[in-house]
């Protein structure tokens, strides 16, 4: 199409050719081209910024929603603590959403509308009563109260995943913004907003004048210009910057209508800083300064926020209350003179205090370690930019109550240990992971003693040798062969030298530097004997044992040496939790989960992370292993756990101590929780702590406060309980009081029945299947002394 014109142009050019006109035209043309190119570049830049920012909404991360129902173990104090956690306020008339009041036997409250992953739940007026530490009544209040079988509370917000420069915001549509806010904003910042082209010629003239006269360039910005400035946050005030701003403002106005620009402005404008988190937009600022949604702000509070636009730092109502108050009143004054409010409203508003809440609601997560784990899980399924910008709502498994107990126990015990051992303060570090036994949901993650600090996350990233925590794998492998091994099979605990190609000779030692001759299998595990365990592992086959790790959810492959069986390889606390989860869950492996579901900003469910169970070990051997691990607590290296937990809980667990006492571990489980604690130093120096004197005390303190359910594993059908002599392992008649009841896989119990003999003093036992203190036949007395000493040491060293 163009071609036919070309020759004609060419002719007209040539006919006009004078020697100087040609280059001049060319220069003008190039200049024009350059300018339009530049404008085009600005246009693309500003549109990209505008489109991008318009939708940049952080992901919101929620903890577990508390489910309340009659019979639930819950105290009024715990319940109110939860109400406060989800932002409820006390009110003598608790009829508004998110308000409550105490009654004689409980609490009356009104819940909020909330959109869960499975749909919306409407606000309800509820009465809850308590008796004997449990919920005794739950009903809808009203003229005819109706019983509620269950109520799901709103989940606590535990953090966000923010875009770019840690910008947080709460997106509002223009029609959600109260009119007084818009009116006052326009009155103060840009009266001609709805009529100008994006710039104020008078403002620009003034700016130019000031530049020419050498004064500071300031003011004169329309909302559009402010928005443009906000996109490219910089304090630079040069003429070229100003020129860009003007051009971009004009371009913005060409592309978008006023309401869209205003809406974006309201969501975009910078209104404060909370540590590393930037507070953007009036929606979030309302929560940040007044802990209420925008539509519930009073006039003077709106004026305070509008006043801050001029300078969020200078007029920060927390840091510079006086400035903020003055500025607020200027705004109110402006509003009344523009007839936005009446004189009476003005007088009333002016007299009120600022009313800012002193402590901002935590925005950057109070649970950084947990949040980090969530984020890593999400990164498998979502693009980083989507996490940060499309307003996903992420429902997680964190239980703030359990998390609190875990944090407190770690902090207090580490401080106490340092004090008792006269160590320098803050040299010990630690990590805790707690999950739910039956479904693998992670309830708490503590990444260090400073739980609020988002630094090195030891729960996930600290790889430490696990020591004796690895032993249950050896014993489970043995117990899976009932024709060879039972809980009372004698093991050889005599000196061992193991030669293996590729590594130096291995001479495992016991912690007490002694050998114990023949010991029963359960005793060897209870006292964590290294030598008998090593011999057992060698008999079973080193590779055979190490090859099982992936089955239990451990992907790391330890070196193929015999020492690996005793835990000479590194795992993180969360990996150990995965390992013990399978033992706690009767041989079913459930991948640990921190996320239940992800929901789009509009409430549409995007992804669920359903319970996934895989049988990886037969139930009966795992049952025996659990019995042996209960023995660790009732009579073995973890006996002093009795200082924290009553014996009736029958918790199972294992201590772990590594060379030169560098790492102190405890992993264990109750009927409802699996928990792992690691204690050590970041510089990997010895701590002087064994598993029992360090990590186990944290575990005990934490579990005591969590109040776990007793551990009573379901008895697999191929398990029988047999009365045996605890020393010789011979079978007794079932009515023989001298015996002890132990579980066996059917067909593996000793067949020969011996007469009910006189038991040794150690072996007296009455009835139930709680394990007696086992004693090694040959070294019983000697060992007992050693045990006492160890126990004493464990407790006080």
């Amino acid at each position, binding site marked *: 199409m163009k071609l036919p014109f070309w020759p004609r142009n060419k002719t007209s050019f040539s006919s006009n050719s004078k020697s100087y006109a040609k280059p001049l035209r060319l220069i003008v043309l190039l200049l024009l081209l350059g300018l339009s190119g530049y404008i085009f570049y600005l246009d693309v830049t500003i549109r990209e910024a505008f489109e991008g920012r318009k939708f940049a909404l952080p992901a919101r991360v929620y903890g577990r929603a508390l489910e309340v*129902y*009659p*019979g639930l173990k819950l105290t009024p104090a715990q319940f109110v603590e939860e109400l406060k956690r989800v932002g409820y306020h006390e009110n003598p008339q608790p009829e508004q959403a998110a308000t409550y009041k105490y009654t004689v036997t409980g609490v009356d409250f009104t819940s909020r509308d909330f959109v869960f992953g499975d749909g919306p739940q409407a606000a309800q007026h509820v009465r809850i009563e308590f008796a004997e530490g449990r919920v005794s009544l739950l009903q809808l209040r009203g003229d005819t109260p109706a019983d509620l*079988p269950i109520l799901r509370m709103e989940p606590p917000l535990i953090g966000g995943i923010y875009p770019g420069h840690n910008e947080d915001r709460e997106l509002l549509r223009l029609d959600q913004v109260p009119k007084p806010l818009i009116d006052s904003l326009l009155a103060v910042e840009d009266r001609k907003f709805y009529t100008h082209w994006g710039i104020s010629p008078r403002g620009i003239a003034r700016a130019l004048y000031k530049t020419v006269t050498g004064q500071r360039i300031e003011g004169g910005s329309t909302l559009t210009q402010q928005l443009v400035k906000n996109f490219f946050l910089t304090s630079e005030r040069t003429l070229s910057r100003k020129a860009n701003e003007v051009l971009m403002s004009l371009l913005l106005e060409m592309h978008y209508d006023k309401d869209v620009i205003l809406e974006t402005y309201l969501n975009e404008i910078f209104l404060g800083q909370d540590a590393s988190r930037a507070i953007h937009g009036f929606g979030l600022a309302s929560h940040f300064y007044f802990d209420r949604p925008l539509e519930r702000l009073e006039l003077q509070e709106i004026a305070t926020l509008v006043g801050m636009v001029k300078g969020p730092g200078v007029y920060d109502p927390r840091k510079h209350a006086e400035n903020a108050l003055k500025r607020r009143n200027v705004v109110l004054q402006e509003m009344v003179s523009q007839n936005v409010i009446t004189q009476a409203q003005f007088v009333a508003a002016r007299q009120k205090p600022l009313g800012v809440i002193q402590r901002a609601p935590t925005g950057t997560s109070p649970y950084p370690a947990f949040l980090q784990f969530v984020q890593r899980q999400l990164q498998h399924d979502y693009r980083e930019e989507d996490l940060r910008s499309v307003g996903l709502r992420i429902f997680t498994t964190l239980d703030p109550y359990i998390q609190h107990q875990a944090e407190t126990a770690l902090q207090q015990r580490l401080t106490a240990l340092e004090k008792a051992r006269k160590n320098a303060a803050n040299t010990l570090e630690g990590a805790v992971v707690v999950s739910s036994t039956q479904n693998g949901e992670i309830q708490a993650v503590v990444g260090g003693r400073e739980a609020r600090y988002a630094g090195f996350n030891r729960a996930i990233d600290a790889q430490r040798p696990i020591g004796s925590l690895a032993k249950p794998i050896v014993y489970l492998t043995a117990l899976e062969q009932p024709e060879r091994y039972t809980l009372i099979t004698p093991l050889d605990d005599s000196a061992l030298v193991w030669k293996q190609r590729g590594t130096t000779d291995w001479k495992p030692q016991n912690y007490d530097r002694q050998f114990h001759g023949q010991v029963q299998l359960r005793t060897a595990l209870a006292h964590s004997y290294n030598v008998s365990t090593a011999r057992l592992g060698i008999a079973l086959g080193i590779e055979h044992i190490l090859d099982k790790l992936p089955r239990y959810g451990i992907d790391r492959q330890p070196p193929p040496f015999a020492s690996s069986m005793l835990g000479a390889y590194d795992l993180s606390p969360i990996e150990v939790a995965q390992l013990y989860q399978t033992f706690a869950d*009767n041989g079913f492996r459930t991948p640990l989960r921190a996320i239940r579901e992800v929901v789009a900003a509009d409430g549409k*469910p995007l992804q669920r992370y359903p*319970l*996934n*169970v895989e049988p990886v070990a037969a139930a009966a051997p795992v049952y025996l292993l659990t019995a042996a691990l209960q023995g660790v607590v009732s009579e073995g290296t973890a006996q002093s756990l009795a200082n924290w937990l009553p014996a009736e809980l029958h918790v199972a667990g294992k201590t772990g101590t590594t060379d030169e006492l560098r790492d102190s571990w405890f992993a264990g489980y109750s009927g409802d929780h699996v928990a792992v604690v690691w204690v050590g130093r970041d510089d990997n120096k010895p701590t002087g702590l064994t598993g029992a004197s360090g990590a186990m005390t944290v575990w005990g303190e934490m579990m005591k406060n969590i109040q776990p359910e007793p551990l009573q594993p379901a008895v697999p059908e191929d398990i029988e309980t047999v009365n045996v002599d605890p020393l010789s392992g011979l079978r007794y008649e079932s009515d023989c009081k001298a015996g002890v009841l132990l579980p066996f896989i059917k067909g593996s119990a000793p067949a020969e029945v011996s007469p009910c003999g006189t038991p040794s003093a150690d072996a007296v036992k009455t009835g139930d299947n709680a394990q007696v203190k086992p004693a090694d036949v040959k070294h019983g007395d000697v060992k007992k002394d050693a045990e006492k000493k160890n126990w004493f040491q464990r407790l006080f060293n």
Partner: protein
Amino acid sequence: MINRYGLILISAWLLLLGGCQSVPTQPVAGGAVAQQPGEAASVAPEPGPVMSNNRAVIALLGLAQRDSAAGKPETAGASLERALRIEPRNPWLWHELAQLRLTQGQYAQAITLAQKSSSFAGSERHLQALNWRLIGNARVAQGDSAGAEQAFQRASELEQAGS
């Protein structure tokens, strides 16, 4: 209200399970739950086992049944998981979840969950039989006819021993 609705659906559901028992070799893949509960409910109901004494759990079971019938298995699964958080050792809940996975075509999960149900079932032979039948159906769907036959055999033995 949820509660009453739930109970009706649960009894309908149990009847459907009963229906499955009479045709053991037919897999129920494709939706035992979705098969017109109304029709099944018109059959004179036998008193079913009490799946839980906890009203919260019963209410959640009702929700799960409703969502499952409405073709929302994911939501139904979420409600069952909520119930399991309250009663993690309730074998009926595990069985329900197994059944749901079966209808979703997740046969391996269905089998595992049925095993898990049985691990908590203790002496409830009736439920153990239901679990074996479910495992049989899942194995049929997986193409493991020998394994399925074994499972159905176990189920029959348990049913006979129980009666």
